[in-house]
């Protein structure tokens, strides 16, 4: 009986650590880290000649805030994205696959600078990748 109890507790512990290890939000470093990365991303995107032309009219602070909420929620964090959906917010921008990928590379750079490990980065990118269907127009 005692053995069973110990096993059960050990099992539960293992399970909770497994669930915990699965929280991408924590692995990204939590809300503050995400906010820093999204601010940096908007900065890089606005400076990179491959994407800058798309963001000439953009309010950078607002975009960084919306991106932070979005990534926070997407990764399982305690946030709620209240912006426009991906299809509506990118329609008519004529975004290309090359521009989308450029933004992915900028995000990778922002995550590198924050010290997010490569495999954690890929878990976030896996959640963002399907959005390409709504964002890329041509």
């Amino acid at each position: 009986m005692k053995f069973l109890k110990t096993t059960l507790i050990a099992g539960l512990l293992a399970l909770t650590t497994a669930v915990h290890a699965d929280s991408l939000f924590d692995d990204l470093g939590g809300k503050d880290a995400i906010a820093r990365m999204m601010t940096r991303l908007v900065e890089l995107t606005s400076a990179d000649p491959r994407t800058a032309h798309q963001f000439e009219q953009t309010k950078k602070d607002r975009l960084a805030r919306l991106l932070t909420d979005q990534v926070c929620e997407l990764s399982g964090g305690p946030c709620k994205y209240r912006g426009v959906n991906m299809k509506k917010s990118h329609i008519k921008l004529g975004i290309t696959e090359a521009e989308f990928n450029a933004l992915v590379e900028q995000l990778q750079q922002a995550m590198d600078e924050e010290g997010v490990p490569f495999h954690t980065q890929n878990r976030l990118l896996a959640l963002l990748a399907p959005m390409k269907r709504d964002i890329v127009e041509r």
Partner: protein
Amino acid sequence: MAQSRTTLLFFLTILLIFSSPTTAEENLFGSGKILATPGVIQVEGTAGGGLTPWAVISGYGTNRQIGGSVHHTYVTTNDFTLNATGATVGLYDRLELSFTRQWFDTGSAGERLGLGEGFKFNQDILGAKVKIFGDAVYDQDTWMPQVALGAQYKKADKGAIVRAVGAEDDDDIDVYLAATKILLDKSLVLTGTARLTRANQFGLLGFGGPNGSSRSLQFEGSVAYLLSRHFVLGADYRTKPDNLAFAEEDDAMAAYMVWLPSKHLTVTAAYTDLGKIALQGRQRGFYLSVQLGF
């Protein structure tokens, strides 16, 4: 050799002209794909792993761009060396065209086989591959892989000799269907390829033979793990027909490490086991491939 050097020069010139600093938002040769997503050039000159074609289109061109690459691959086993030089063009991430010439040097085994020391079996491989559906990179929320249909026209240059060892023809077409799935959250790239072929030792020893004169279905698989942004670890396995009577032919495998310092340079180093070749026993050895591209 002269021909391949010309091909190489031609592509290097194209590279120089078009990979000049890009400021335009949509440069036709702007290398818009994400690093490592076009795979490497496999031994027959198409985008894939070491031995197995993948469903991806070679080069860093997106759906609105053109990409391409040149490669040289060197394989050395117990008794043989294989050199391969070629080029690929990827059009709009939809159609891939490739050309590779292989030189298979029998070294001192040539003497033992009565062909003469350093006798070379060579072949030219013209490839075409078209992406049919799915997207290996973006379809992260479904199980749907990227699927491509490919063909390789192969022409062995020593027609009389390959017929003398039992092959029926010195040229033929391989047809394959490749499915590639990137599991980005696991940093894995999985590929399964089914090939209809009658090639003996990839085609170097001709096509068909006493033990099989028509194409048979062969399977190839590839597992690659993205170690870091610039390093990929992978392994390929490939079944082959066994058509010739004079010597048994085995399956082939390779385990490789790819280094991608940039989108313009890719280096693959591999350990390979090609199985028994031409009565000289099991051929194990090393493989090095250098690829330049955009």
